[in-house]
């Protein structure tokens, strides 16, 4: 179910529902995917549920927030299809430009993958783990189970429409207010661990290293610890995590389940293919990420990405941007160091020199700032801010 989980992500941390794995949730070797689902009759309760998601999908199709690049859509859809097997025919993937860690799959086959997840996954195996989990919810028809759990369907429809309205408004406050209601419709822990187990099955069947299902949660936990407020929300068990066990517990159970499944031959990471597929969109996704202004989390993310690609000038530029925008303590000096390092690497954008000029100007290093601004204008003479930058340079 999309909305409740959206709420959790938006107010703090990614949690593709923080479930836990139970031994035997889908026992190794015993689990087989169900046959394709027929579209339910519209008068049935499941048909009504599909209808609601069909309307949401019609809206999503028109959204300006969709990432429409055919190559990236094709890449993610192919991966989802490999995992979903014959259910691929019923699955539609939508890449949504939203800088939070989330993916979801609705009972009608609408799968959403948010750009914050694409930015954070380190490789194809990690994305496969998340998509596999969502396909797991779909194959186990968890949404329908939840619907049947709710006594009053009228009330359910009401709440769902409120969630969708809140999701569109994107108002953090509204999400927080709706938190208690939302938790009523979140998947249960049993459903989460079943989806986790199915996800592991699917990813390892296709050769992806099961350890990456754990690694993506370790990465997220590291990011959470990088931001004091997010960590406070996490450790304080606010509404954010009220219905779910902590990441640490989930990691442990995922490791156990991976051992049970075995498959030592599943070692594929797909790191290079993943980086190549994302390359064209990384700058845009980072611009969105910076807008969150969760600098501590972003620095942890960047540090991790730099370890995998130490010679990437763009990553160093983004790191400089985080320090420049935060501007606390010795951040401006840190920003300068990052910009200068980036300039010596491959792939840094011209904006690097504008940012360097701005920082130097803030530090009253006028002559050096003019050198940086001149370089920026040489590289981008028609920049959107060229008129203002020229006022910083003496008339020549």
């Amino acid at each position, binding site marked *: 179910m999309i909305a409740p989980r959206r709420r959790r992500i938006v*107010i703090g941390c990614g949690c593709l529902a923080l479930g836990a794995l139970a031994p035997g949730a889908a026992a190794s070797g015993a689990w087989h995917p169900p046959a394709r689902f027929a579209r339910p009759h519209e008068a049935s309760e499941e048909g009504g549920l599909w209808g609601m998601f069909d309307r949401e999908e019609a809206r999503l199709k028109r959204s300006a927030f969709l990432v429409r690049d055919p190559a990236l859509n094709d890449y993610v859809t192919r991966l989802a299809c490999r995992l979903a097997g014959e259910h691929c025919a019923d699955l539609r993937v939508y890449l949504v430009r939203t800088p939070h860690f989330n993916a979801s799959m609705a009972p009608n086959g609408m799968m959403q993958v948010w750009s914050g997840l694409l930015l954070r996954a380190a490789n194809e195996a990690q994305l496969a783990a998340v998509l596999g989990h969502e396909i797991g919810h779909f194959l186990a028809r968890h949404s329908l189970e939840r619907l049947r759990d709710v006594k009053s369907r009228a009330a359910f429809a009401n709440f769902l429409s409120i969630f969708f309205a809140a999701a569109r*408004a994107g108002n*953090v*406050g509204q*999400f927080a207010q709706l938190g208690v209601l939302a938790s009523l419709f979140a998947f249960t822990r049993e459903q989460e661990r079943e989806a986790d187990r199915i996800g592991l099955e699917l990813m390892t069947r296709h050769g992806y290293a099961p350890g990456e299902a754990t690694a993506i949660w370790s990465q997220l936990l590291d990011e959470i610890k990088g931001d004091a407020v997010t960590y406070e929300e996490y450790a304080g068990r606010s509404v954010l995590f009220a219905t779910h066990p902590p990441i640490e517990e989930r990691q442990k159970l995922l490791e156990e389940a991976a051992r049970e499944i075995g498959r030592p031959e599943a070692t594929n990471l797909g790191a290079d293919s993943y980086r190549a597929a994302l390359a064209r969109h990384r700058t845009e996704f980072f611009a969105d990420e910076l*807008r969150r202004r969760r600098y501590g989390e972003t620095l942890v993310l960047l540090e991790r990405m730099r370890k995998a690609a130490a010679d990437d000038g763009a990553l160093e530029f983004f790191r400089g941007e985080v320090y420049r*925008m935060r501007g606390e303590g010795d951040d401006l000096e840190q920003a300068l160091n990052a910009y200068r390092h980036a300039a010596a690497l491959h792939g840094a954008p011209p904006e690097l020199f504008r940012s360097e000029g701005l920082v130097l100007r*803030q530090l009253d290093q006028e002559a050096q700032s003019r050198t940086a601004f001149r370089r920026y204008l040489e590289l981008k003479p028609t920049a*959107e801010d060229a008129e203002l930058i020229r006022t910083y340079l003496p008339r020549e």
Partner: protein
Amino acid sequence: MRLRSALLAAAALVLGGCVAMVRMGPGTVTVRDAISVSSDGGWNRLDVPGGGGEVWTSDGLSLDVLTFFVGIKDGEPLAPAPMGSRRVPPAFRAAMLPHQIVELYEASATQDGSTFRLERLAPGAFAGAEGFRFDFSMTRKRDDVALRGIAWGAVVKGKLYLIAFRAPRLHYYAKHLPRAEATARSALIRP
């Protein structure tokens, strides 16, 4: 759907009780005791509790918004944190460069998840001071509507004065832009 109707009615009552709308002008109008501007009488001020700058509109908030962030002191944010958020919103600093003020405005304008793209940043006189202006485009998260915007700003005696106008790219931006520009041109800082 009885419950839904009841909820909507309750929301309307709450909002109806809190949001006051006041017609501005025609003539000289004082904004937040910080500046005076000339209004053509077609603007309405909305007093929304917990809001940031002073908000004016002609056709309604979804269709055109003129926001005044005026007399903002060093250390003050443009807008308070959204309800329910424990995060400290970014604050204005007297030493900020125009680029940083654009980023400050961007942070406030995109709290709802909308996109923001700077189209032009140029020097420009504002409120009798050497200031700057910037043009931008956005996609509003709530309804996917493409917006255009323009803002005029200056930092005078350590305080920020910024007037931002934004409206749907289709029709409403062009409809109200000359009036927004005239209002911004008339701005004078109060002694």
